[in-house]
């Protein structure tokens, strides 16, 4: 891959519990582990786990990471409307927002964004279901974010995904790969 390697990623992934955002965050975090970078993955925890919103913050950096809670993200994956409302305005200038408009139907409309923030909105959940990849909208979004920001090489991204699919659930690896590719292809 000849693309520029992005040296710091501060990514918030947010949506409903069950949409797989904590998993997508782990894939992201594992790219940093494989690259030998500083990494932190911080989930929201507590009552939110029980059916409400779920989010995690993933930092990839070449310096030691301060707070693992991200207040000014460079990237956001939002899979429901409350997540857009909660985090979109905090995305740094020049940052990237990926929104699954299946549930976040309004996208970033009405949100006061920082300068040069790129909003990428598409119906990830609908696409996943149409492609027989139910439950993998999270990975489609991750693929789309990677295509935009290149936070690691493609090889590392693939390796991280493989690493995160548990041994007992190897049958899910191929669908995950397809979903990732689908997200990346959306950038074409």
């Amino acid at each position, binding site marked *: 891959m000849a693309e520029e390697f992005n040296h710091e990623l501060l990514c918030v992934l947010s949506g409903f519990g069950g949409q797989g955002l904590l998993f997508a965050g782990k894939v992201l975090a*594992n790219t*940093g*582990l494989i690259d030998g970078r500083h*990494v*932190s993955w*911080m*989930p929201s*925890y507590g*009552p939110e786990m029980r059916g409400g919103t779920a989010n995690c913050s993933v930092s990839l950096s070449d310096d030691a990471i301060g*707070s693992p809670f991200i207040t000014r993200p460079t990237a956001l994956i939002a899979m429901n409307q409350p997540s857009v409302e909660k985090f979109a305005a905090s995305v740094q200038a020049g940052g990237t927002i990926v929104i699954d408009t299946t549930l976040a139907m309004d996208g970033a409309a009405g949100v006061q964004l920082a300068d040069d923030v790129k909003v990428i909105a598409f119906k990830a959940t609908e696409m996943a279901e149409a492609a027989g990849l139910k439950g993998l909208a999270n990975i489609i979004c991750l693929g789309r974010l990677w295509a935009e920001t290149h936070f690691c090489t493609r090889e590392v991204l693939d390796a991280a995904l493989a690493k995160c699919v548990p041994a007992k659930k190897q049958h899910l690896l191929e669908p995950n790969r397809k979903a990732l590719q689908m997200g990346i292809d959306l950038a074409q």
Partner: protein
Amino acid sequence: MADNTQAQERVLMKGNEVLAEAAMRAGCRFFFGYPITPQTELAAYMAKKLPLIGGTFLQAESEIAAINMVYGAAAAGARVMTSSSSPGVSLKGEGVSYMAGADVPGVIVNVERGGPGLGGIQPSQSDYFQATRALGHGDFYMPVLAPSTVQEMADLIYLAFDLADEYRTPAMILADGMIGQMMEPVTLPPERDPKTLPAKPWATSGHKGERAHNVVNSLYLSPEKLEQTNFERFERYAEIKEKHQRQELMFCDDAEIVVVAFGAASRIARTAVRDARAKGIKVGLLRPITLWPFPTKAIDQVIANGAKRFLSVELNMGQMVEDVRLAANGRAEVSFYGRTGGVLPTPEEVLVQIEKLAEDMERGE
């Protein structure tokens, strides 16, 4: 502390799970606890793994029962631990005091949340007083280690077991919801060879007709005897203070302002200090790793290096700041900045405080 023959692979793990894994590698085979957020992953990990290596995980009926099971297992000579979060740790105070009074080693983990009372479940450091001023009644202290990274969760619990055994004392890991819940890359310590664990000839495991009977006890009805045992225990405390103060210093060689912060707060402070340096402010970071003993020698050192002001940054209403003030003992001005209840300060907030101090100093205040 560990032999390096085993593979040193970096893995991505949650802080709470790392505490459990590293404890087992340190030779801990017994865990007694009670569920509470945000430390539950630790107990869950132990429940899964301990039985596979011949250990015992037991969910006790209460925190009180759990710490007393720890007391019993420790008296019987085992490496043993319990873990909880703030409200549950209060309940353990009784047992910890008995462990101290009976000179029984064991490790207590507190993954702190906000208080008082039921408080909240977000990260906090509001149990600093409780941990460092003796958790429970009576004249005692215990080593308190404060990890600020997931890697330190592994390194410090390993150390906690060794300190506990060496000085026959309970020892505490004072972590918080942030370090407990987050994942970071970690290199786990190698498995401790059980043969290298210290002998415990005082343990109550049956005299087998081979020695006089052992008694593990904290009751001394003679004031003189009780005083004498306390004197002896405090001699051990003096040795711990002399040998085991630990801290990390950053930019402290020429620092006129020194931010003091531990655990989660130190991560935020680190960013703020770096940003302040970039603005040309002569500021450093002193991160206590041992909260008891408090790193007084490091305070002396940074004062000798020219520190004029200390800023204690904590996730509470100002607790460690008292130790900073005691250690500075009038030689430097000490101020405090903190957020509480589970609210975390941003690095920007801390930077503002550092800038204010720098301006004050320029004006000669």
